[in-house]
């Protein structure tokens, strides 16, 4: 089983989390009215599958319930009226409009929607033009950037020891409690944006002494805050699940291929090299930060890419979500499971 080589053809895997799921995941805990511009199916996928917190936390997530005539006639004014009506119930501090394939195909003017909706609701309206075609990290990145751009506007005195963590979502870390674990792994006073820290912390972002992008989706927002307030920032992942660390403890002398979100995979790479692995390669289907890629690292594209990477690197061990075993054709080495929710929909135990 080697996986499909034809562009976009999946024979063994199910699709990974899309950008509209990333948008909702990044913004879920900030208290906004989130309106997914779809007919209903995308909302069902996002809420019922890609957002584990949705089952346990009350949230103001809606589908705009688009129908064929809405799409054909471009009835934006009706959409705005629906948002205004819902906002009277929700009274959210802001509104988010999330793009999906439908507005992408009909070239919805999100800027105009934003203006119309802001005028009528009198609250900020964020529009994230996800398309359902790209991966979740692209959507999360846009969402974080827009969130900070809109709300982190006031320059406040820097608080020593105050750290901002951007890019933590259940999609990246496979746990709705990941915020707690990441905070626990950092010794300083850490604000985990979107997983424990809310809108007020975003507004006070200029107080941060340092920002950390714990996944590639946090990079754009960190750059924005550096440009706006001069806040320095770093790229690294401070937390790896204990179960995965333990399983990877005895790989001295081995060639290991690690597949996960880039920064988490890099953290594992550092750990493995520190414990005597002979060589470690990092691969991901999602965004990879060019400046952090080594010669042996792989940007995966198609389903068959993973088998090629494992063979090309001559890996003894692969550490990845176990769903990816299906596409490791001819791989004779050992496999360590590291759940990645955006890949398989599996949470950590």
């Amino acid at each position, binding site marked *: 089983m080697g996986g*499909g080589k*034809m*562009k*976009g*053809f*999946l*024979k063994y895997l*199910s*699709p*990974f*989390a*899309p*950008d*509209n*799921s990333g948008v909702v995941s990044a913004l879920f805990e900030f208290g906004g009215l989130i*309106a997914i511009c*779809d*007919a*209903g*199916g*995308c*909302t*069902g*996928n996002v*809420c*019922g*599958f*890609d957002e584990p917190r*949705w*089952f346990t936390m*009350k949230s*103001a*997530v*809606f*589908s*705009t*319930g*688009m*129908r*064929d005539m809405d*799409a054909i006639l471009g009835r934006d004014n009706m959409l705005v009226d*629906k948002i205004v*009506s*819902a906002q*009277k*119930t*929700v009274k959210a501090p802001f509104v988010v409009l999330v793009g*999906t*394939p*439908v507005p*992408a*195909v*009909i070239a919805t003017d999100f800027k105009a929607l934003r203006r119309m909706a802001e005028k009528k609701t009198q609250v900020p309206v964020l529009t994230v033009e996800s*398309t*359902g*075609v*790209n991966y979740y990290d692209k959507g999360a990145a846009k969402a974080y950037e827009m969130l900070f751009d809109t709300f982190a506007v006031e320059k406040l005195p820097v608080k020593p020891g105050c750290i901002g963590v951007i890019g933590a979502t259940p999609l990246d870390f496979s746990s709705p409690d990941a915020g707690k674990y990441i905070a626990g792994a950092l010794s300083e006073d850490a604000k985990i944006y979107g997983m424990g820290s809310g809108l007020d912390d975003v507004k006070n972002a200029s107080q941060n002494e340092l920002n950390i992008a714990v996944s590639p989706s946090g990079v754009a927002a960190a750059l924005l805050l550096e440009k706006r307030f001069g806040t320095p920032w770093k790229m690294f992942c401070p937390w790896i699940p204990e179960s995965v660390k333990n399983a990877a403890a005895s790989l001295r002398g081995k060639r290991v291929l690690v597949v996960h979100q880039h920064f988490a995979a890099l953290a594992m790479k550092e750990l493995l090299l520190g414990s005597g692995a002979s060589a470690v390669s990092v691969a991901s289907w999602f965004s990879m930060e060019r400046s952090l890629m080594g010669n042996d690292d792989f940007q995966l594209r198609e389903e068959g890419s993973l088998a090629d990477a494992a063979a090309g690197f001559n890996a003894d061990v692969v550490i990845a979500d176990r*769903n990816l075993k299906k596409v490791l054709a001819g791989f004779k080495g050992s496999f360590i499971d590291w759940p990645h929710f955006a890949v*398989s*929909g599996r949470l950590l135990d």
Partner: protein
Amino acid sequence: MAEHYYYITAEDLFSRGVKNIPDELVGNKNLIYSSPATLAFNSPGAQGFGVKRAGLAVPDSVMLLVAPRCCGRNTSALAAPGDLGERFFYLLLDDTDIVTGRHLVRIPEAVAELCDSLEKKPSAVMICITCVDALLGTDMERVCRRCTERAGVPVEPCYMYALTREGRLPPMTQVRKSVYSLLKPLPKRADAVNILGFFTALQEQCELRMLLKRAGVNKIRELASCRDFGEYLEMAEANFNIILNQEARYAAADMEKRLGIPSVELTRLYQLDKVQKQYQLFAAAIGAEFDDGEYFKAAEAAVEDFRNRYGKIAFSVGEWLNGDPFELALALLRYGFEVPEIFGTVGESNFVWIKKIAQLSPGTRISSNLSPTMLLYKENEVKCDAFIGHDARYYHPGIPGIDWNGEDQPFGYSGITGLFRGLEAAFNEWEEGK
């Protein structure tokens, strides 16, 4: 400004009339609230059958989902090893595809590669397309013909067009036509019928089968019970079809046109006398006599036993269950129970029940799960003793009840019996757990 969730009493709703249903109860007039009570509306396949799972009801078929990755994401839930997990495949669209339709030229190649890679050749390839192709106006039947020529297996389209769900042919109506479209004309068997409407079989204890057998029907087929493609093809020899879900009417009309199989429709009901009357009319229509006394008595006893033991229970009735919530609520009222609230979608087909509910229980609250104001519904806001329906369970944690949305389909007297015996078991379990 809404400070409270929206509801209207049965009395007020009836007085407004079916042509004047309040906008708060009409889904596409508002944003659609996404809660665990509405998941089945947005994503029917989340628990049960949506277009993707329904399309695979054809035995030995496989499905190629041609869509942006967001449309196939929750299919991961079906991806466990086993039957369904190994029958889904994907051809993902990129940014250029969704604007130009370029993906269409890749589909025949993908179908051919898929068929060649499988150990066993599929009976059919169902190609599922989504909103993108609805907007592009894709002629999927033409693409499927090309695929059939290229791959040498029948290829049929399934339209997961959520954009058209309130149109003339919503997705779950279309897919029912798709799954029967592979049948070819056969000589008719006078003693064979098909049961259409559901993607899972009727409950084993359903009396409809026995009543038909006694009337001389020896072969009763359901799609879900066909073990292989050969058995599926034999559905074409039916003398007539029995429609149990109105979403199957379009499929039945197509079967009549193509295969010469007429149909008769029965309705799932929970009112004992209505079930009896329906069977009488059905028997007369097919020239038979149904002796349904034993089943009637069993259902009657189940209702009485429950009522005698638990008294005048107040039920919260939801719509995420096997039945129409308004008809079920009316049945409960007529059996002597109370129904303080109903969550459901009001339309022309079920407004007839609203009239009777208004007479028996004018103050019953009627709400739509989809209303944004449901964000304000406080748990157990309306005092009830029990719930029926997965959505009603969400609003009432901490009281006994049943979801009544299992895959085995209840119908007729056995549906009523099963409901009340199920409630009894739920109450027993509740009491033991205290």
